[in-house]
């Protein structure tokens, strides 16, 4: 049992403990959830310290035969691409758990599913065996379905089933892809590291087909245009903490998959798809931003802004340079932190006012200074203000893509302006202007909310001013990745 | 030769016991006949060289189940019942069915008539059975233990006083 297994399965152990607790003991359930997730986070801290930044090999590898007849293994390991995501998962899950302490109904089931979800998410990033990867991938689906479908908003059932069908359809294609590569390698294997080396034995046509299958699976998760329509709905209906995890971690699974599998395993398919990918990235950026601008619901606006930001990631990947990869990986981290904070903050106001309509408010900055400050921070970080986390990564994405796609990048820069426009409009309508007396009973953030949001805000500033700690984790691996194919 | 004598003896005991079970009017005698019949089967096992099976048959069937049934009979038995008929009206039909089936089975069993009885070996089967149970048959073994547990619980549940 090495550190990765512990990080992955500690939350699941916590979930089992919760299962054993009687459902009236709410404090104990919450404590069990926080402790198991917190331990996982502490171990992630250790992972961060112990991680060797000088090599692009897999580290903390654990390899045990699992289903020998299939050749499937229990095979975990991280490199510079996945280790930030594992840490992000633990961090955002812990923060979300803090934010979930105000859940009032069916506490036991809620925390149980949440911890299972955390295990699934960590597992996706740590798994190096295709079967294991697929299993973890699917494990995330079920808790999400219940979390949205039970604790969600008014249209929760519809949102949950849409989310479920969408992603399940995607992952069915992914399964096809996995089986295709399994049966077309000699010897048959599910070992990701071996598969990454074996593209030489596949024809171009095969790679393209398999690429499409994998891409469909990942694009739904990213979500890339036109497979994104589940996202606003799911976000709007999901409870706050679930939205946080959904945006901060689940979307990253798609980008991670594209970088790890589509790019690494199927270079010919990837290069065939590259022109389409850059088009999708541009569409994601501009179209997502425009859709966000049309929203009147804050949460939906943030959800569409996620589509926009994932477009930056795709843009960075499409650049096929180490810079673009660095941008995409770093953008994943930053988007996780920033959008997580944004969803938390939107949740705060929804808890108090029971509405998220932008035009329903006005002048809140006078009444809720701390809230307004943190919200402005998150919004400005999201629109890419330098000094806050979003800027550097966004810039690296553009920088990576610009060398190859000058015109497309130049066009997608418009997305920055539109992003700024809708965030500023939201800030103006909600926080500035004459105070709307209807909300004179609102209170500022309480301790629990501060505990959840302030660390994210601090990280936003730290990573914005000094991104080295995050970038150094990935540099070696990404440089290695960029050097794989000419 | 000695095997043949043993076989016929045990077979006779078995069949007589079985006949007693199904025909005797007094249920307590039936139960005792059952014990006799089971003991006969145990003898057949011993004759076949299945030592562990023989022991199990004696311990579980003769020593356990038969005694249990005797107790149950004594718990429920009413002396007034001794005057009542213990066999219902479909006995003729049952006999017919039995006869027809017997002929069929007899014809089927004749397929093996040429198989000679090998020389019985003094091999002990206990060890082999144990290995088998802990090895290939571990899962059925565990499943059986669960069945037993369930039966135990079920029995307790059904026979509770306050059970409706």
């Amino acid at each position, binding site marked *: 049992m090495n550190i990765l297994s512990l990080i992955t399965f500690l939350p699941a152990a916590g979930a089992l403990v919760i299962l054993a607790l009687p459902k009236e003991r709410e404090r104990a359930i919450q404590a069990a959830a926080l402790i198991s997730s917190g331990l996982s986070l502490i171990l992630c801290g250790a992972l961060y310290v112990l991680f060797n930044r000088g090599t692009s090999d897999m580290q903390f590898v654990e390899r045990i035969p699992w289903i020998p007849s299939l050749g499937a293994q229990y095979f975990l390991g991280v490199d510079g691409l996945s280790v930030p995501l594992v840490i992000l998962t633990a961090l955002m899950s812990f923060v979300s758990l803090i934010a979930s302490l105000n859940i009032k109904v069916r506490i036991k089931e809620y925390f149980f599913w949440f911890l299972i979800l955390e295990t699934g998410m960590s597992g996706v990033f740590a798994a190096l065996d295709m079967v294991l990867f697929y299993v973890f991938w699917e494990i995330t689906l079920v808790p999400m379905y219940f979390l949205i479908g039970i604790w969600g908003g008014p249209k929760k059932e519809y949102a949950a089933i849409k989310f479920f069908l969408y992603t399940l359809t995607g992952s069915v294609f992914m399964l096809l892809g996995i089986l295709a590569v399994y049966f077309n390698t000699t010897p048959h294997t599910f070992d990701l590291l071996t598969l990454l080396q074996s593209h030489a034995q596949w024809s171009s046509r095969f790679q393209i087909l398999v690429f499409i299958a994998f891409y469909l699976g990942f694009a739904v998760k990213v979500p890339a245009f036109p497979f994104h329509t589940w996202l606003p709905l799911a976000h709007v209906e999901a409870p706050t903490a679930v939205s946080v995890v959904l945006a901060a971690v689940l979307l990253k699974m798609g980008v991670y998959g594209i970088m790890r599998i589509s790019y690494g395993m199927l270079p010919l398919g990837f290069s065939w798809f590259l022109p389409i990918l850059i088009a999708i990235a541009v569409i994601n950026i501009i179209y997502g931003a425009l859709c966000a601008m049309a929203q009147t619901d804050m949460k939906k606006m943030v959800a569409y802004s996620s589509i926009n930001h994932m477009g930056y990631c795709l843009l960075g990947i499409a650049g096929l340079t180490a810079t673009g990869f660095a941008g995409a990986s770093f953008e994943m981290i930053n988007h996780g932190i920033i959008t997580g904070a944004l969803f938390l903050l939107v949740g705060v106001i929804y808890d108090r006012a029971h509405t998220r309509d932008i035009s329903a408010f006005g002048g809140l900055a006078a009444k809720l200074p701390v809230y307004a400050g943190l919200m402005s921070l998150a919004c400005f970080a999201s629109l890419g203000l330098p000094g806050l986390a979003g800027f550097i990564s966004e810039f690296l994405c553009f920088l990576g893509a610009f060398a190859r796609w000058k015109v497309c990048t130049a066009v997608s820069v418009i997305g920055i302006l539109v992003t700024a426009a809708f965030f500023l409009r939201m800030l103006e309508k909600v926080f500035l202007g004459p105070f709307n007396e209807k909300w004179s009973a609102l209170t500022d953030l309480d301790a629990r909310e501060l505990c959840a949001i302030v660390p994210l805000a601090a990280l936003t500033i730290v990573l914005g001013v000094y991104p080295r700690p995050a970038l150094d984790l990935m540099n070696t691996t990404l440089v290695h990745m960029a050097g794989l194919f000419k | 030769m000695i095997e043949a004598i043993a076989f016929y003896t045990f077979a006779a005991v078995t069949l007589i016991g079985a006949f007693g079970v199904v025909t005797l009017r007094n249920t307590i005698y039936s139960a005792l006949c059952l014990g006799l019949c089971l003991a006969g089967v145990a003898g057949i096992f011993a004759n076949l060289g299945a030592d562990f099976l023989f022991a199990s048959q004696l311990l579980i*069937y003769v020593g356990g189940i038969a005694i249990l049934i005797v107790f149950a009979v004594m718990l429920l038995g009413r002396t007034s019942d001794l005057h009542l008929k213990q066999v219902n009206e479909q006995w003729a039909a049952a006999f017919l069915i039995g006869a027809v089936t017997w002929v069929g089975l007899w014809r089927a069993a004749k397929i093996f008539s040429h198989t000679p009885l090998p020389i019985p070996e003094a091999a002990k089967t206990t060890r082999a059975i144990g290995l*088998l149970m802990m090895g290939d048959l571990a899962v059925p073994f565990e499943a059986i233990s669960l069945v037993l547990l369930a039966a135990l619980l079920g029995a307790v549940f059904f026979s509770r006083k306050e059970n409706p």
Partner: protein
Amino acid sequence: MTLTHHLLLGAALFLIGVFGALTRRNIIGILMSIELMFNAANINLAAFNHFLHPEGVLGMTTALFIITVAAAEVVVGLALVLAIYRNCESVYAEDFNLLKG
């Protein structure tokens, strides 16, 4: 002695069991008849084991499992009989037509 002898013994025992199960009025009698059928099967298993696969013990082991199942069956059966008797003051099978649809 050949396998046929044993099989015929098993068949006879089984048919007696069937006859008993079909005709006995007393529920305990039916139970006992069922035990006879189990034993018939056991004899067949032991015999097959002995004559066809003398080197193995699988047949005997299966017989052991059957003995176990039989024990479970008889325990539950007797418990049921007790429960029925407690409720209906009867142990005769024809008094119960709960199976009637």
